[in-house]
């Protein structure tokens, strides 16, 4: 993984110059050139022209972000071109329209000859017949050939329900098979790498996986071995397919050949509720689709957004969701009694206690640690509260390893949200030593920690015992929640709505995928209550209203509207 690769190609606009072609008898002007997988302008293909005309051309090996291979033959389309006379002038019909020569086999003028739409450029006046009887026949033949050695084990196949073989079989397949010979058996349950299992019998040899890892990731680990109907996807014996992007090949695989060890046999895909969200593992903010059923998350898959993550995401981020369903989640509002024990309480009592304390607190004696894993709206509310009570505020930086593809060195999903709302200054974490020192000396007597463990952030545990009031809003138990006077159970971002601002300043909205456990509430909800209790304006009580209030107050977000963010976000300048 050393050579730079076109993992996220530049977004190139198609050429302004157009070509007029006919798709299923309808005239359409399409750009003469369109961006290829590397974002370079190339002559527009028949497949792209059909897509622009709104006609689907079935395909397995073609993918807009991979080099064209042209091996599956599923996109064969019958076509015709204007006839030219010996004088190089178009031959015309009696009515003056150009005469079209349908493509036929060289020595069999009665037999239509298709072209693979993914790799054949269009030309002026070309006619494409993606719905003709001949095209349909070609698709049937290709599909029949692909299914010859396929095990047809759909009932136990993970891909069932999102399988291109199944979908195209419904549209173009035959109800019965003519194949009476013995099927070729190929390797099954091949352990390709730590996260991938391969079933070679289901493979249609489209080579999407090979091209992805070779041409985009630069980790040339996969190939096709053997010959003819024994062709098999394989890694070299003794090598492992284990780069940080391997699970993208499971998404790319149009059939059930490549499966994720994490998701394999866990859930039928048609039971999954799909929710658009954002990966919170680093500051890149890859767009994801959350697959959940009955409040349990079963998988994350990348959601296309060319401005952020293309079609891809890293394996680490994709598998970083199990903590959401951990059994030790904070699920009760708790208040410490004078005896020193924590007791289950209610939101009203707990927030009242916090508000009463904050109203009495003197300016400079309060510190707020607001995690950059909170949403921008929550950081904004904490900033409002902080200003109201005169608190010192900061966030906890998380630096780690980045890579040249998608993984960012900043492991907080929303440090730019903290910057935009003024929770942190130019140097996140610069106030932390002052806060920790203040807790030690007793200058700071009240601490509100949201989503961060102060002990992990460097504050000695015994110092926390000196505080008059320690409020911990968090998701999982830690050394701070164990010492808090008030514990407020919060939500993972997958359990609430809000926005993150990624490292490039993309404001991205996410939706709620699953319910939070027990008493847990989205932080923004109870922070709005707390802000009101401290004398703030009654304000909005929904996320849209909160966002618009924030957009009015925060210069960086000026003019933004919740609905305009869409599911792919808007870029702002931080």
């Amino acid at each position, binding site marked *: 993984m050393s050579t730079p690769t076109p993992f996220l190609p530049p977004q190139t606009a198609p050429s302004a110059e157009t070509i007029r072609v006919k798709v299923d008898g309808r005239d359409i002007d399409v750009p003469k050139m369109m961006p290829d997988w590397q974002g370079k302008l190339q002559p527009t293909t028949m497949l792209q022209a059909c897509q622009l005309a709104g006609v689907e051309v079935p395909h397995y090996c073609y993918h807009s972000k991979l080099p064209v291979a042209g091996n599956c033959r599923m996109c064969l389309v019958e076509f015709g071109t204007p006839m030219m006379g010996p004088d190089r002038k178009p031959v015309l019909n009696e009515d003056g329209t150009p005469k079209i020569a349908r493509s036929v086999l060289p020595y069999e003028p009665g037999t239509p000859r298709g072209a693979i739409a993914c790799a054949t450029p269009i030309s002026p006046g070309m006619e494409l017949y993606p719905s003709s009887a001949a095209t349909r026949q070609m698709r049937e033949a290709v599909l029949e050939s692909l299914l010859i050695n396929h095990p047809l084990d759909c009932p136990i196949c993970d891909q069932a329900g999102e399988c291109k073989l199944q979908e195209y079989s419904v549209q173009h397949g035959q109800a019965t098979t003519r194949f009476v010979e013995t099927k070729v058996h190929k390797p099954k349950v091949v352990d390709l790498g730590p996260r991938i299992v391969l079933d070679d019998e289901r493979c249609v040899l489209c080579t999407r996986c090979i091209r992805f890892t070779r041409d985009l990731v630069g980790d*040339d680990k996969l*190939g096709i071995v053997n010959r003819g109907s024994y062709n098999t996807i394989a890694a070299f014996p*003794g090598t492992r397919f284990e780069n940080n992007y391997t699970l993208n090949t499971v998404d790319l695989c149009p059939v059930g050949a490549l499966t994720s060890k994490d998701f394999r046999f866990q859930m039928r895909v048609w039971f999954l509720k799909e929710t658009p969200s954002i990966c919170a593992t680093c500051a890149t903010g890859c767009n994801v689709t959350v697959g959940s059923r009955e409040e349990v998350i079963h998988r994350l898959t990348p959601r296309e957004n060319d401005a952020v993550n293309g079609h891809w995401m890293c394996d680490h981020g994709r598998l970083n969701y199990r903590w959401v369903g951990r059994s030790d989640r904070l699920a009760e509002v708790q208040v410490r009694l004078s005896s020193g024990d924590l007791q289950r309480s209610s939101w009203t009592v707990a927030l009242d206690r916090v508000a009463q304390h904050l109203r009495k607190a003197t300016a400079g004696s309060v510190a707020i640690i607001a995690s950059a894993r909170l949403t921008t709206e929550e950081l904004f509310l904490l900033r409002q509260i902080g200003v109201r009570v005169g608190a010192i505020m900061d966030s906890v930086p998380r630096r780690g390893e980045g890579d040249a593809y998608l993984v960012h060195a900043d492991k907080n999903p929303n440090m730019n949200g903290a910057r935009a709302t003024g929770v942190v200054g130019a140097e996140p974490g610069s106030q932390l030593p002052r806060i920790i020192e203040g807790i030690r000396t007793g200058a700071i007597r009240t601490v509100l920690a949201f989503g961060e463990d102060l002990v992990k952030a460097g504050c000695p545990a015994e110092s926390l015992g000196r505080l008059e009031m320690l409020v911990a809003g968090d998701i999982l138990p830690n050394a701070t929640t164990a010492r808090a006077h008030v514990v407020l159970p919060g939500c993972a971002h997958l359990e609430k709505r809000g926005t993150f601002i990624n490292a490039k300043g993309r404001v991205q909205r996410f939706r709620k995928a699953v319910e939070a456990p027990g008493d847990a509430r989205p932080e923004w909800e109870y922070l709005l209550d707390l802000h009101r209790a401290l004398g703030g304006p009654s304000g909005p009580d929904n996320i849209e209203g909160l966002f618009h209030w924030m957009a009015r107050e925060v210069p960086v977000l000026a003019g933004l509207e919740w609905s305009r963010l869409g599911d792919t976000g808007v870029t702002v300048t931080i």
Partner: protein
Amino acid sequence: MSLAVPPALEAEIDTLISHYPQRRSASLMILHALQDHFGWLSQEAIEWTAAKLGLQPINVLELVTFYPMFRQAPAGKFQFKVCRTLSCALGGGHALHGHLCQKLGLDPHKHGIQTTPDGKFSVEFVECLASCGRAPVLMVNEAFHEAVTPDQAEALLSQCR
């Protein structure tokens, strides 16, 4: 990677590579040179070739498994290659192959190359050996034999002992 390639062979391979504008293009020639020397292509030989050409081993394995003339296991000391392309198939190639297999205790219906347990003889079908007018033909190692009857094949076997 523990393939001991003699300096003379490596020099020959370096010359082969120099014949092509791209190193990768020499893959097949290198594999032939290695198989001529070692008799077969081990995993180490494939890794050595890949390293020599700056490729991944899987790129070379693809070639080795595609072309039937490359072997991934040692063959016998005497290799009988029986032609089964059209003229020889019509002229008795299958009978010839079957006879050899029967004499050597091998299965005539099995696919691919077969070697006797003592490692002395291998028998396999090959495609056209370019002497269609004198079918059936076979090769014993590098020696070419035309219009071979089962009796003659038996004689060839006995000469190999």
